[in-house]
C-alpha cells in the first residue's frame, strides 16, 4: 500500500452494501438548503459502476413522471450519499446497461432473481 492509497483509505466508506449493475437500489441523499439538511431518496436501477478507490461512482436510472427517464451519478464515497439499500437483485449479462436508455415500457424491464 503506497502512501497515496493510505491517504485515500481514510476517506473510504467501509459499510457499503454489495450491489452490482442491474440491481434496484434506494439511495439516500443529503441535501443542504439554507442551514437545513434533509434526506431525499432516489430509487432506480444501477446501470453502471465505474472507477475505483475514492473515485468509484455509480449511475442510477429511474423512470419518472410522464415516462421521463432520470439518471443520477453518485460518487460512492461521498458524504452526500448517506446510505445505499439494495431493493432487489437483477439478472443481467453485462456491466453497463446503457441499452435501457433506448427502451421504454415492458422492454425496459430487467429480470429479478
Amino acid at each position, binding site marked *: 500500500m503506497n502512501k497515496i492509497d493510505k491517504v*485515500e483509505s481514510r476517506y473510504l466508506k467501509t459499510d457499503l452494501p454489495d450491489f452490482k449493475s442491474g440491481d434496484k437500489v434506494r439511495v439516500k441523499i443529503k441535501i443542504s438548503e439554507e442551514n437545513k439538511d434533509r434526506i431525499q431518496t432516489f430509487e432506480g436501477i444501477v446501470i453502471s459502476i465505474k472507477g475505483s478507490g475514492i473515485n468509484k461512482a455509480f449511475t442510477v436510472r429511474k423512470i419518472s413522471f410522464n415516462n421521463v427517464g432520470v439518471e443520477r451519478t453518485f460518487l460512492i464515497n461521498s*458524504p452526500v450519499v448517506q446510505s445505499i439499500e439494495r431493493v432487489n437483485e437483477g439478472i443481467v449479462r453485462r456491466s453497463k446497461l446503457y441499452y435501457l436508455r433506448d427502451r421504454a415500457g415492458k422492454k425496459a424491464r430487467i429480470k429479478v432473481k
Partner: protein
Amino acid sequence: MVDSIYGKKIGSTQIFKENGDAVYVTAIEAEPCVVVQVKNKEKDGYNGLKVGFGSAREKKENKPHAGVFAKNKLDIKKYIREIRVEQFDREYKPGDLIDATVFKAGDKIKISGNSRGKGFAGVIKRHNFHRGRMSHGSHSHRIPGSVGMCATPSRIHKGKKMPGRLGGKKTTLPHSEVVDIIEDQNLILVKGSVPGAKGNIVLLKKI
C-alpha cells in the same frame, strides 16, 4: 513562531469535505525536520533554523555535510536547508523536531519548489503564442513569426519572447491552502497541484 516546513511531494488524489465537495489535493510528506543549528539576530543578523530532513546513507554523504550533524550527535539527513523565523515563540536547540503540526487545516500557505524541466521549448508551449494555419498552403505552423522591425532599429528588442529552456526553475504558488493534516503519517494535504514531479522538495510557508 515557526511557520514553514520543507516536505516531499508524494502525489495527488481527491478527498471529500464534510459538505460533500470533492477536493483535489496533493499530499506532501513533512518527515520531521531536525533542527541542526539555531540562528539568532544577535549573532547571525536574522532569526532562523537550519534543518535537516530526508533519510540518507552515512557513507554517501561527504565530510562537511556529515560534520554538520556529527557536531550535535544527530543522525545524518540528506538535505540541509534553512527556515526563516520572524520571532521565536520558544527556545529551540539542535535535535528538536519540526513536524506537520506547524500547520492546521484551513491555513493559507505559499508553496515553492522546482518545476519539472521541459527542455528546449518553442514559443507556443513556452509563451502561449498562437499557432499558424496547418493547411491551405500555410508553412507557418508553430514558428514565432516576426521578431521585430527592419533597418531601424536593425536589432531585436531585449526580452523578446523566443524559444528556449522551459521549466526546471523555482516556482511559487502564492495562494494555496492546507486542506487536512494526517499527523500519524506526517502528511500535509494541500489544495490543488504542486510544482515538480513526485519526490520533489517543496517549501510550505504560511502567508
